[in-house]
């Protein structure tokens, strides 16, 4: 079982397909859960502590907006943990989930420069494309076993 970083990190379709095919998907809600369900809430409401933007500094310079560093504090460690990645390139849908296009660009860059196997895809628009989409993900994940 490999750890797969998916982009967008909140994608329902990718998270489901990865788990369905027997691998572990590294997703943003997991990182969020660690913070918001921690009984020791040090920094309400979301428990983002001053340490988090410092962690983000590892991925983005100090002159980059603090929101990027804050988001990278959640997503960055997931990228470090990953054995492989699946990236969806479709600007129409992607700015919403992570809420920041600069973070999205940085996440894509980090996944692609990490030196792990990466599958690049776009969202399918019709049935034939959807079949190819699922078949490519299946072949990619089977190749990792």
């Amino acid at each position: 079982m490999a750890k797969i970083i998916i982009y967008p990190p909140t994608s329902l379709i990718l998270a489901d397909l990865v788990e369905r095919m027997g691998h572990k998907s590294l997703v943003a809600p997991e990182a969020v859960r660690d913070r918001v369900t921690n009984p020791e809430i040090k920094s309400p409401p979301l428990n983002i502590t001053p340490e988090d933007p410092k962690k983000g500094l590892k991925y983005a310079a100090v002159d980059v907006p603090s929101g990027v560093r804050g988001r990278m504090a959640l997503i960055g460690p997931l990228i470090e943990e990953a054995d492989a990645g699946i990236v969806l390139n479709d600007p129409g849908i992607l700015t919403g989930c992570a809420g920041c296009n600069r973070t999205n660009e940085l996440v894509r860059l980090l996944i692609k420069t990490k030196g792990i196997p990466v599958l690049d895809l776009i969202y399918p628009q019709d049935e034939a494309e959807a079949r190819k989409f699922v078949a490519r993900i299946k072949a990619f994940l089977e190749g990792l076993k």
Partner: protein
Amino acid sequence: MRITKYIITSPESETLPSDIAMRIYGSKRNINVKETCFGIIINGEEEEVADLVKEIRAMDPTGIFIKDRGFPPGDPRRCRGRRGGGARPGYYMIESESKLLPLISRALASEEKASPGPKDTETILKKRPISIKKLDEIVKEEIS
């Protein structure tokens, strides 16, 4: 550790969120269930949720999609009832992806047909007619 998951049904699936909720209530597991317009949210201990996810997937293997959620159901930091209405953050991603779920469901179904699982392969092999050569040998053995 308690975890939360979204269970989202494809718009074309014949399984309703209420069917899934009833199944969970019937299983008598210690799981919190919240029904929503697009599916259900479940919350429980990690091992229990993992078992339940397998059961739920079996209800409609190609029509039910599951993903993690960070916040527990009804959390005041996310619950729109307590934030004065409006869609909660993250809903837009589910909305945009749920439009594609019928396509993915059909693709998964055709993928399953193209490469049947081990059980199906065994059945096909068992049901395959014997070769003419083998039949000829059996006939000769029986006659002699």
